[in-house]
């Protein structure tokens, strides 16, 4: 079963891990994104995650479904947190299991790369001196300027 959620509740990695796995699965991969204390050489003291929650939910479901279809497993849970996070807090958790290991590794990697490309979520870093700045992001595909090669 594919499970996704976007919200302010703290993420419990053990709980996310427990949500996947069947008797047919010989491999599981858990990926955690964690708030770290540095970025581009600056000391970071915390992070605020903003999200377009009404859209981020469906986009995260879409990403998870694409991963499931590509890699042939539906044992996949993806949770993305919003709000005020401290250093060491988990911002995103991706758990996947599959009969063989390659699919779990690839599904996990696919989901985090796609999150970074197109999940409508933003983060503001807070620095030691009290400054804060939105982290530079990526322009999501399929939006904005009309693409030359668009179907």
């Amino acid at each position: 079963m594919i499970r996704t959620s976007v919200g302010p509740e703290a993420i419990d990695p053990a709980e996310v891990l427990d949500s996947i796995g069947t008797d047919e699965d010989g491999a599981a991969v858990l990926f955690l994104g964690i708030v770290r204390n540095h970025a581009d050489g600056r000391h970071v003291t915390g992070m605020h995650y903003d999200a377009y929650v009404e859209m981020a939910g469906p986009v995260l479901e879409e990403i998870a479904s694409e991963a499931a279809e590509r890699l042939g497993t539906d044992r996949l849970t993806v949770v993305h947190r919003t709000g005020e996070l401290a250093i060491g807090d988990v911002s995103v958790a991706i758990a996947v299991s599959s009969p063989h290991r390659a699919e779990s590794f690839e599904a996990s990697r696919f989901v985090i790369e796609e999150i970074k490309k197109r999940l409508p979520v933003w983060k503001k870093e807070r620095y030691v001196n009290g400054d804060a700045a939105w982290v530079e992001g990526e322009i999501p595909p399929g939006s904005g300027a009309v693409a030359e090669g668009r179907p």
Partner: protein
Amino acid sequence: MSLSVNTLFFAAYRDLLGTASLEVEVADGATVADLVEALRSRGAPFDALPAEPAVAVNRVYAFSDEPLGAGDEVAFIPPVAGG
């Protein structure tokens, strides 16, 4: 004839405009590009929005030539940085 759409602003765009949402009137048949132009022509701080920002119409990413309908939710999406 005109129609009204509900625009949403997130992250850096919300900070820029000092608002999270705005009801905007556009001409019948207007596209996303027309809406962006209408907003930018209001002057500061709206003119600091990109000319071709990423947008989502009714929670789906849309190109700038997407036509708008009455009551559409049009979100201005700064470059995303999840994970």
